[in-house]
């Protein structure tokens, strides 16, 4: 009896996932039949003229998430190393939860804070960045108000940093003490232990952590919608405004002009789900080799 109930609950979880795919595909059908797979590459988004393409959105999603990964991966691994290898257990017990608290702050607050505090700051920062690094196309002419792909990348960095750092800390703590002691007995410094023992033995787990962070960054809608500008354009420069798949849905769903507009956003959602499922599966595939425990303090992350 209880077994049946439990099995039913598990079945419900699986069925929900399949129904989600089915439902999104169904509601996206008008857009799918009209635009086909060309939707993925087409960069015009003019709902008033019944022309929609997700090219610019996919580009913006990829660039903002890549930016967040580039910033958050080294930072997150460094924090993981600090918490597992440098800090005393007492400091670890205080600083670790503080870093994880970054994941508890809701995305609406990151968005609001990003718009009011971060965007003006980035606005100050951008001319300097452009002057110093302007020879790289990524740092072309800045936008005038600080609403940019860079701002979105920074907000996403803060949001995925706790995921990467908490996961990598947990991984580094699983490295057997004997191995580390053995290296220390051979005269290795702390850094040599990290480089020779800790990082190689956890590399794939850290890779999984990074992929999980990427999944979160790709799907973040609300926080990004405040700071990226929802401009349907492909700029090489990250100092210009842009748009992402999730953010477009958050910005335009309520004011959708017609059924095709709604269907196009369902199509965007379908793309997001497929990407999200692939990242989850990839992270699991990478991590399962080491059976990484990805629960993190009761599963806040």
């Amino acid at each position, binding site marked *: 009896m*209880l*077994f049946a109930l*439990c*099995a039913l*609950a*598990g079945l419900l*979880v*699986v069925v*929900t996932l399949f129904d*989600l795919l089915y439902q*999104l595909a*169904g*509601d996206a059908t008008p857009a799918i039949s009209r635009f086909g797979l060309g939707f993925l590459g087409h960069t015009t988004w003019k709902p008033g003229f019944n022309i929609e393409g997700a090219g610019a959105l996919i580009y913006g999603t990829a660039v903002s998430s890549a930016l967040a990964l580039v910033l958050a991966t080294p*930072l997150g691994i*460094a*924090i993981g190393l*600090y*918490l597992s290898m*440098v*800090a005393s257990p007492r400091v670890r017990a205080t600083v670790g*939860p*503080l*870093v994880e608290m*970054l994941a*508890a*702050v*809701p*995305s*609406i*607050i*990151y*968005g*609001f*804070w990003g*718009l*009011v*505090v971060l965007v003006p700051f980035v606005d100050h920062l951008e001319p300097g960045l452009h002057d110093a690094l302007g020879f790289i196309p990524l740092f072309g002419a800045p936008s005038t108000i600080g609403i940019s792909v860079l701002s979105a990348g920074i907000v996403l960095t*803060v949001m995925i940093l706790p995921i990467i750092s908490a996961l990598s800390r947990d991984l580094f703590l699983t490295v057997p003490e004997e191995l580390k002691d053995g290296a220390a007995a051979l005269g290795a*410094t*702390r*850094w040599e232990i990290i480089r020779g023992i800790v990082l190689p033995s956890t590399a794939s787990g850290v890779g999984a952590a990074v992929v*999980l962070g990427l999944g979160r960054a790709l*799907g973040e*809608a*609300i926080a990004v919608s405040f700071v990226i500008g929802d401009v349907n354009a492909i700029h090489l420069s990250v100092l210009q405004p842009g748009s992402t798949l999730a953010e477009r*849905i*958050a910005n335009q*769903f*309520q004011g959708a002009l017609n059924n095709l507009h709604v269907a196009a956003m*369902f199509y965007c*959602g379908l793309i997001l*789900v497929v990407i*999200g499922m692939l*990242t989850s*599966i990839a992270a*699991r595939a990478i991590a399962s080799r080491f059976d990484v425990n990805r629960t993190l*303090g*009761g*599963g*806040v992350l």
Partner: protein
Amino acid sequence: MSIASRLVLGESGRFDPTAPLTPSGNLRRRTVVDRTVRVIATAAALAAVAMLVIVVYGVFVRGVSSLSLAFAFQTPQGLAGGGIFNYLVGTLEVVALGATIALPIGVLTGLYLTEFAGPRSRVAGSLKLALDVMQGLPTIVVGLFIYGLIVIPQHVQSGLAASIALAIVMVPLMARASQEVLLLVPNSLREAADALGVNRWRTVLTVILPSAVGGIATGAILAIARAAGETAPVLILDSIYNPNQTTFDIFHGVPTVPMLIFTSVELPIPEAVARAWGAALLLMLMILIANIGARVWLARTRAKMAR
């Protein structure tokens, strides 16, 4: 001269017992690298903590002036006056209903994984994968899914639809938390119950669940805190409501705190923005306090179970 002999003999080349044992040459380079890495790692951790402080402080200074008892216990007057009582009640309704749906599903799934499926079971493996995928779903997509499933057929946005979407957000968190705690229940308890000839379901209800209830509850609190701040599903499913009225009709639009913030941010009325900051601060404080409380409790439960 080798490093070792330099260390013992000192720079003069003669044995000098008073020479300080300082690393030199290659060893000095290695210690410098080591120290640099430690400094970088410490700086990174400080930067993350500083980020938390900056965000919390930024919301605090902008929101604290709005906070008062009236802010929490009055309904709004017009676009900017009064408090946010109806929004708080609405969030409570939507989240509580979502948690009521998610908790049994999450706990039963956790029970299935720990008590009924074997450790090498294929079914359990795919269920865990499904939970992972569910947890990784962008929440805005969950909103779209429920929009197609419930809002389109019913032709009306509702708090109920938002609750169901939040339940989908909470189920994987609750299932994982339950699974974690249930794994901590000592096997000797199960074996003792088996030896007494007790049914498996009776063992679960009277032995296993009671000893895991603390951990399950804290996991539930963490999931609820997560759901309370979710904006994307509410934006898709529950954005049409009467902003000045307290409602208990979950079959129609229910005002929620995240939506208040989302809609007030770009209003050209300073008082409305101030109210949004107050709401943001209140929401953030509630979520952070729930998180801290649950973590402290969880650590204590775990320590107790590990004994």
